[in-house]
């Protein structure tokens, strides 16, 4: 088929050249897909209770096994797995877009303080609610409230960073600004914590540790649609992201509306990172690590390739981290595991100077 295409295109071009250009990434995608599938299965099997594959299969097929097994699967591991998959994909795509936008290989929602922004929003909400004496941690009002306040916080910080990025053209300065902003926000959060009730404090601290558990189907659906919207917007951003790779002056001379593009990336990242942070807490390092692993593995900077690759790899890393976390008793917070995976990747980037 490809050869036919080459012959039709013909006109003196060497077919091998076109084959190389139109290189498909089936092999790479297949490897990641198999890896993801294996990890998904492992994630369902492993844990404080090991469930044999045949029990998983028969439970999933609807055959009656034991209430114990189906309880663990349907109310614990499967919702957690779905959440982890979504979170990994969302944070990674978010990181990829920020790296391209800021032309900074170390940009991600966590480092630039966007997750802390979401944290501030949640702190406001959790502590505000408890101050008014309303405490219904599982009610829809509460979960939607956390989500909304996290987005508002995330959006406010992203907006601030974006505004500053007009002035600070230098990436390192912007990165330092983001880190400083994150510290300032953390300080504000500490202040809130100091004045809040014990129960509110506990809710908030647990939220900051990051967790994929405890989401009910309603919350998973809300998260799914938000991330889907963010993902769709990210896919729409692909064309502009590719032009941004070669500098803003060039992008502008092509007729790209930079302000609109920046805003679109901002909204997409807020939808993605804000939602994940809202429901699962601030999860760091995946946003930086996954895009770089995708670049190394696929050796292509085209966002048409990178967006799906990064999403898949992000999901792989997140499920891996979750499986690792799940293996210990008591379960380690997901943020600890993601840092253990992410930090070496970041260090490797700095040491090898593998900039975008």
């Amino acid at each position, binding site marked *: 088929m490809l050869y036919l295409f080459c012959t039709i295109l013909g006109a003196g071009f060497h077919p091998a050249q076109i084959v190389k250009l139109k290189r498909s990434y089936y092999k790479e995608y297949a490897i990641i897909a198999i890896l993801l599938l294996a990890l998904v299965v492992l994630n369902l099997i492993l844990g404080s209770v090991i469930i044999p594959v045949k029990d998983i299969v028969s439970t999933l097929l609807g055959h009656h096994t034991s209430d114990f097994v189906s309880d663990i699967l349907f109310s614990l591991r499967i919702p957690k797995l779905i959440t982890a998959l979504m979170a990994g994909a969302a944070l990674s795509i978010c990181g990829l877009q920020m790296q391209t936008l800021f032309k900074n290989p170390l940009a991600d929602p966590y480092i630039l303080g966007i997750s802390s922004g979401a944290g501030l929003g949640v702190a406001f909400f959790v502590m505000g609610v408890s101050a008014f004496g309303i405490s219904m941690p599982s009610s829809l009002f509460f979960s939607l409230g956390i989500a909304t306040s996290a987005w508002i916080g995330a959006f406010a910080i992203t907006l601030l960073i974006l505004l500053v990025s007009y002035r600070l053209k230098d990436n390192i300065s912007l990165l330092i600004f983001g880190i400083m902003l994150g510290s300032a926000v953390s300080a504000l959060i500490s202040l809130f914590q100091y004045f809040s009730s014990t129960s509110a404090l506990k809710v908030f601290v647990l939220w900051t540790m990051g967790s994929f558990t405890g989401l009910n189907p309603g919350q998973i659906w809300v998260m799914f649609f938000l991330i889907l919207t963010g993902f769709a917007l990210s896919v729409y951003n692909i064309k502009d992201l590719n*032009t941004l790779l070669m*500098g803003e002056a060039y992008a502008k001379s092509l007729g790209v509306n930079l302000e609109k593009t920046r805003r679109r990336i901002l909204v997409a990242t807020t939808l993605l990172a804000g939602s994940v942070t809202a429901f699962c807490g601030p999860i760091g390092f995946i946003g930086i690590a996954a895009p770089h692993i995708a670049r190394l593995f696929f050796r292509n900077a085209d966002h048409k390739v990178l967006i799906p690759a990064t999403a898949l790899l992000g999901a792989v890393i997140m499920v891996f981290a979750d499986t690792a976390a799940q293996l210990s008793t008591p379960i380690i917070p997901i943020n600890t595991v993601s840092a253990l995976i992410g930090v070496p990747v970041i260090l490797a980037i700095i040491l090898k100077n593998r900039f975008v």
Partner: protein
Amino acid sequence: MLILEKLCLGYNKVIYREINARAGKNEIIALVGPNGVGKSTLLKSIAGIQKYHSGTIKILNKDIRSYPPNKLAEQLSFVPSQSPRAKNFSLFDMVSTSCYNRTNWLGKISEQDYDFIYSTLKKVGLDGFAGRDSSKLSDGEFQRAAIARSLVQDSQIILLDEPTAFLDIANKITITRLLKEIAEQENKTIIFSTHDLQHALKICDKIWIMGHSQFFSGEPENLIEKGAFEQMFKDSSLKFDSKLFTYI
């Protein structure tokens, strides 16, 4: 084709005043002037990348401010002095980004554009390079790639900001010859800024001089006669030698 009328550069305050110049089809124009006088600003203002203070820039007798960005991009393309290089971005992908206004929302390249990109790469002497990592090209090759990119954008006017800076003599000559060829064969208007006056005087149809105090535009011989080049560095001890085409 391109008309500048009483153009004053700058955003809040004027950094350069009263530029009056014209550029026609098939013309290759060199923009010369001392460092920091505003050559890049002029090119970027024409390209619509930067705002200008006052005056008018007209393309095909229409103010550029009345063009929507995508329509302006059909008239003008811009080659920055140093484009950032994206690692693992193939030369083909790099050049194909300039089909921006012709592709669908995902940036899919049509078969027609495939052929166009290949023939353009051939024209700039980069055939066989399409699949290579653009960030690993040599400086001369990368500059030719950037020129190919603006050719694929298929605009009538091509603006280049110091395309030959950072290049060795052989590459400098290759690039300027290529530009001359493009202007002649493809009916394009080419305006590029340069410090290589000698070479510019030999190949260009017109020279735009941004002196510290005055802007000159004209054919090389006329400018030499008028003593315009003396104006360019008039506060220094440099003298323009009209036989050697250079300052001594």
